[in-house]
């Protein structure tokens, strides 16, 4: 079977798993979806009125968005620190924690990026930051370091658990050399 076919059935199976559950599970998911929709509605107000809708001012120019962002960077780092023993100390018992820990890290990182985007005055011109078509003021601006670290960290955090899951789904053993190398990259990117 080709890798793509396996991937397809992995996606189908996971969709199957996450959409089935008890009533409480569905209620909880429905509640979370509601919270997300409320958030989207509030963001639409902010897009319409500008950042004044958040109550920030020239005196308080960075507010909850940035504090949440820094907090979630910490959460992501902590989640990865939790799974590091598996990679470094070869602690088998900890293996159970790997996927949940890195899943948490991915969720935290996505929220980090979303908070940064929500904090921008002009989210529609964020392409100005993409190297090549925009101007990426790399070594000078601290914010560009943030962009690189967050996206790199997110990429690693998505790719390792995906690799392990993908192998696990096929009942294969994941190659250590692949993910230990990436785990070392963690330490470079580490908080």
């Amino acid at each position, binding site marked *: 079977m080709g890798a793509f076919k396996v991937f397809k059935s992995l996606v189908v199976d996971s969709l199957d798993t996450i959409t089935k559950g008890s009533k409480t599970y569905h209620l909880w998911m429905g509640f979370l979806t509601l919270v997300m929709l409320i958030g989207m509605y509030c963001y639409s107000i902010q897009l319409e009125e500008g950042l004044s809708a958040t109550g920030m001012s020239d005196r308080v120019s960075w507010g909850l968005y940035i504090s949440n962002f820094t907090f979630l960077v910490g959460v992501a780092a902590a989640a990865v620190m939790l799974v590091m023993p598996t990679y470094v100390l070869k602690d088998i018992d900890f293996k159970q924690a790997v996927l949940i820990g890195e899943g948490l890290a991915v969720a935290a990182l996505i929220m980090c990026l979303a908070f940064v985007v929500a904090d*921008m005055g*002009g989210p529609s*011109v964020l392409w100005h930051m993409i190297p090549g078509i925009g101007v*990426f003021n790399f070594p000078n601006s601290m914010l560009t370091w943030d962009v690189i670290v967050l996206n790199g960290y997110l990429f690693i955090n998505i790719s390792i658990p995906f690799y392990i899951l993908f192998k696990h789904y096929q009942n294969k053993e994941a190659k250590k050399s692949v993910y230990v190398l990436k785990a070392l990259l963690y330490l470079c990117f580490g908080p």
Partner: protein
Amino acid sequence: MSDNKKWYSLDLGLNNKKESSGSCGCGKSEGSCNSSPKEEELSADEFYEAAINASIGEERHRDGFEQVFDVKMDRRSAFKKLTASLVIGAGAVTTSCSVTTGSDTKEKAQIDWEEQFKGNYKLMTDEEKQGTINRLMRSYELRTDKKINMTAENAAEDVLFGYAFNISKCQGYMNCVSACVEENNQDRNSEMQYIRIHEMKDGEGFKFDKADDNYYHEVPAEGHFYMGTQCFHCDNPPCVEVCPVQATWKEEDGLVVIDYDWCVGCRYCMAACPYDGRRFNWSKPEVPEPEVNKNQHYLGNRMRKKGVMEKCTFCVQRTRKGKNPACVEACPTGARIFGNLLDPNSTIRWVLENKKVFRLKEDLGTEPKFWYFMD
């Protein structure tokens, strides 16, 4: 059925069908169980054929282009399809290239599109600069039916602008503040002001935390002195360093400017500025049309959008034409002095050479081009 197959195949009902057509429930394998089994077999085939014909018809033998275009249809269905495609097409046409909705709408959309995807002003050639200010002028005309005059004048050679502020002369009248607001088209709703006049107690030195910069009493108040702060146009500006997209930079003549259209609104520069020189458009800036200053510069007082930074530009639209900034002209006491630091005969050079001058937070190494002095 006991085939000795070695593989497992799904029961999709195909075998049953075959058996029922080959041998039916009556047990006979040949001949007739009904009146006409042959006929029935035929009719099943025919039914299958007819069903396919009904659904895809001739398309079985065709592909690609022919399937779509070489379709039999009667007049009624042809009209139906034509009408449907016309309705869809009309929508596309009105939004893109209609002449009936007016070429203005089309031009506006074209300008907005080009403005959305233009490059960084700092990296533009002179033609591109001219192109963008032409678009902006045309856009303003299309929206308000009023003409504005916008320039993209570059820095002149051998010019370095500097500013001096006489603390002993300033009486806190704030004429500079209102002149600045009028000159630079600042948002009237949020009462944005580039200049802050701080009222401080005599004999206590600069204590910005104890200063009152929002007073509404008669000036000059007894036992107080006044000093103004604004963007100091540092020679080593920290705000320029931190911008992730280089939307702010130092021009050749020393002005620290912002490309309002390139700014992404992260407010990093605001956090980096030690002098509180930068302002952010927290909501859409609004200036009543008759009050808009129509003499504009791309980097200066043109209309801003919401969610971008702005700040004092030493009135780039005036100073590059050889005039003084609006605050200097408005000051009734002569406390403000502006000029070319590279011109040995300028007033600012005389002040720097003959007065005891100092700058704010000099230890930070930002090298502001804004000096304070006393008589």
